[in-house]
């Protein structure tokens, strides 16, 4: 509740503030706050993802964009806001009107808690053998949504490549000089260099943990992938993008990008080949639950790969723009 109010405050601040760096930072905080809110609301997985994706990646990307464009917003032309305000007020009013017949907040008798959800909570343990209901719903019951979602991120990555991807590397030096002023500040700093060197392995390790532990606790492919990527991003920020690129060549990231989705889709195809429907994991092993378990592990891996690769690709593509 109080958190929500806090978010609202931030929201207004964002609307008012003209300095875009500030805006972006606030947005990051906004996401983080919402993440905390999600924890309060029992949505640990979502919180995890929002913190990593919303607060992490999105913010980094926006900062990158600002570095490439401008950090100050011009003043808005005056007639437009009124009209917009009117539109927004109407929409909001309609929504409020809509809420009037809603079941109250947290009401256990609300329809959503009784039509579909119970089965997930009751039977998923026997049907998929996983304690983390979110994961089993995500990867199995509604696995197809997740497939689609992985493809969305895949699309985004490929799209970014297509829009601002620059195959040739000749202009890197020039860029280095151009960005020197904003970069050498960090680069010089010994503490950062050392600490990050120490952090890096842990981050990657943690990523793997999240990846494999997703079935039991909060976590899974998305979170893992993002964290994994963030490791490289950190490295690239502290040291040089070129070095980072040397570690993960664009080709490689591109390859994993595709590999992940293929793995996910492939598992589905195998399921179909083995006589089940598409994305039916039960047929993957003799015991259905084992099959489910195996399938979920594989698809989560696929998700992890693609998400990580996608994030890395997107970030590097942004980073290797010249100003």
């Amino acid at each position, binding site marked *: 509740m109080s958190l929500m109010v806090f978010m609202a405050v931030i929201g207004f601040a964002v609307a008012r503030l003209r300095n875009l760096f500030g805006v972006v930072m606030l947005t990051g905080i906004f996401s983080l706050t919402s993440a905390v809110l999600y924890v309060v609301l029992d949505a640990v997985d979502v919180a995890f993802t929002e913190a990593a994706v919303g607060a992490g990646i999105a913010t980094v990307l926006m900062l990158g964009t600002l570095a490439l464009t401008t950090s100050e917003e011009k003043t808005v032309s005056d007639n437009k806001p009124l009209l917009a305000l009117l539109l927004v007020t109407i929409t909001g009013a309609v929504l409020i009107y809509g809420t009037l017949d809603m079941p109250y907040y947290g009401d256990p008798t609300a*329809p959503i808690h009784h039509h579909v959800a119970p089965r997930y909570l009751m039977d998923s343990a026997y049907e998929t053998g996983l304690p983390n209901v979110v994961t089993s719903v995500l990867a199995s019951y509604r696995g197809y949504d997740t497939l689609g979602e992985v493809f969305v991120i895949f*699309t985004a990555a*490929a799209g970014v490549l*297509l829009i601002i991807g620059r195959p040739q590397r000749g202009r890197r030096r020039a860029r280095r000089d151009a960005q020197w002023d904003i970069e050498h500040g960090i680069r010089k700093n010994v503490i950062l260099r050392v600490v990050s060197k120490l952090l890096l392995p842990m981050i990657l390790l943690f990523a793997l943990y999240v990846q494999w532990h997703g079935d039991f606790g909060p976590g899974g492919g998305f979170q893992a992938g993002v964290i994994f990527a963030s490791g490289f991003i950190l490295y690239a920020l502290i040291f040089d993008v070129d070095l980072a690129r040397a570690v993960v060549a664009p080709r490689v990231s591109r390859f994993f*990008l595709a590999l992940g989705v293929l793995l996910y889709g492939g598992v589905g195809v195998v399921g179909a080949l083995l006589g089940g*429907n*598409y994305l039916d994991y039960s047929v993957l092993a003799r015991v259905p639950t084992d099959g489910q378990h195996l399938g979920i592990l594989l698809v989560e891996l696929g998700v992890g790969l693609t998400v990580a690769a996608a994030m890395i690709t997107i970030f590097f593509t942004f980073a290797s723009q010249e100003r």
Partner: protein
Amino acid sequence: MTAAQIPALQVVVALLAAPVCLILRRPRVAWLIALVATWASLVMALILLFSVLKVGPISYLLGDWEAPWGIEYRIDMVSAFLLVIVTTIGSLVIPYAQASVEAEVPAARVYLFYCMYLLNLAGLLGIVITGDVFNLFVFLEISSLSSYVLISLGKDRRALIAAYRYLVMGTIGATFYVIGVGLTYMMTGSLNMVDLATLMPAVIDTRTIHVALAFLTVGLSLKLALFPLHVWLPNAYTYAPSAVSAFIAATGTKVAVYALLRIVFTVFGEVDVLSFPGVQEVLLTLAAAAMIGASATAIYQENVKRVLAYSSLAQIGYMVVGIGMESATGLAGSIVHLFNHALMKGGLFMVLGCVFLRLGSVEIADMHGLAKRMPLTMAAFVAGGLSLIGVPLSVGFISKWYLVQGALEKGWWAAVAVILASSILAIVYIWRIVEVAYFRPRPEGAPAVSEAPASLLVPTWMMIGACYYFGIDATRTLDVAVGAAETLLGGLR
């Protein structure tokens, strides 16, 4: 893997072909993959259509989780027909694309182009085939994101702005849609369309559901560019690469219209949504505004692609009018028009692709006397244009016939007047171009242009030819369309 798996493969083939393109990175190979995937999808779509005609709606449970717990694919006459439309257009555009894309997209990125195209195709198919409102959103996003990218590939820098505006509008639309889904889910606890339809009557009188309906409609109307939510469309169509214009113009809005049909007639099928006070009136007014306003605007455009874009807006007006009639005839009119308009617009945009390839522009001012230089291309334009006007023997005539008939059955004289008036306007904006191309002399010093290559002309003419084939023998398409209309009106029964 048996025929039982076709519903899944319908989408998955195109979906998985995309990453393969990304790995192989060779333009020709990517093109080949896209070709094969698209044609395979066409075959599957036809199989599905015929089996639906034979045995009625098909239900396919993904992951073998029965609905509403798992995600269900539900293919009835309407979706099957839409699948056929989308894949047909794709199958004709892809052979065309090769030359056109090589001319308009930097060689290093061509393979990514086909990757995007495949994703777009898969997204559209996914929207059409799914029976789950949230899954629809996911695939909506796949197709939208890819189309933003495709549009941004246009040579003109305005393509970027067009893509960006489309992205913003599209995302707002999608978010509205998701909010609507959330509200319905809140009241019913289900996401499966069929399931929702059964649960709906119980809660239909709640204000929440009304708002939900409003948000779903507005969200989708943004996607299908219903007046006045159309502002993104003209630029997007105008500055996108030719092949993209042809494909998206022919399929994108159609699929959005389909989604609207689904929501109105399936999800809310058990309750007569259009009889809510105001709903019908609003729909019809907007449609009329689109038909007249857009056609009139089209007359004053100097860029032919833009002319066609505005005429698309008008055509969308036709479809919405048909939906608004809520009668078998009117609905059949809309559905068959989905198909017919896809054919003619696809064909016309392909023609412009030919022109652009040779002329490097599609400004009317540059097309003086073009007919002498590119007789076949311009002949195709005339043929397509006549179909757009709706002269007999063309598909345009068929759709018009059904829409007018539907309006007359309802006794809506105004609607009849609007439909006919709009086609009169079509005469004007088409003939303007024809006259310039045929009766103006080629200006001195104008670049010497030659006829477009066969690789472009053949697909174009196949598309235009289809306009007349299905215009002369419309019984097949109409049987399907009428059947589809009845399925929709019948709700689930």
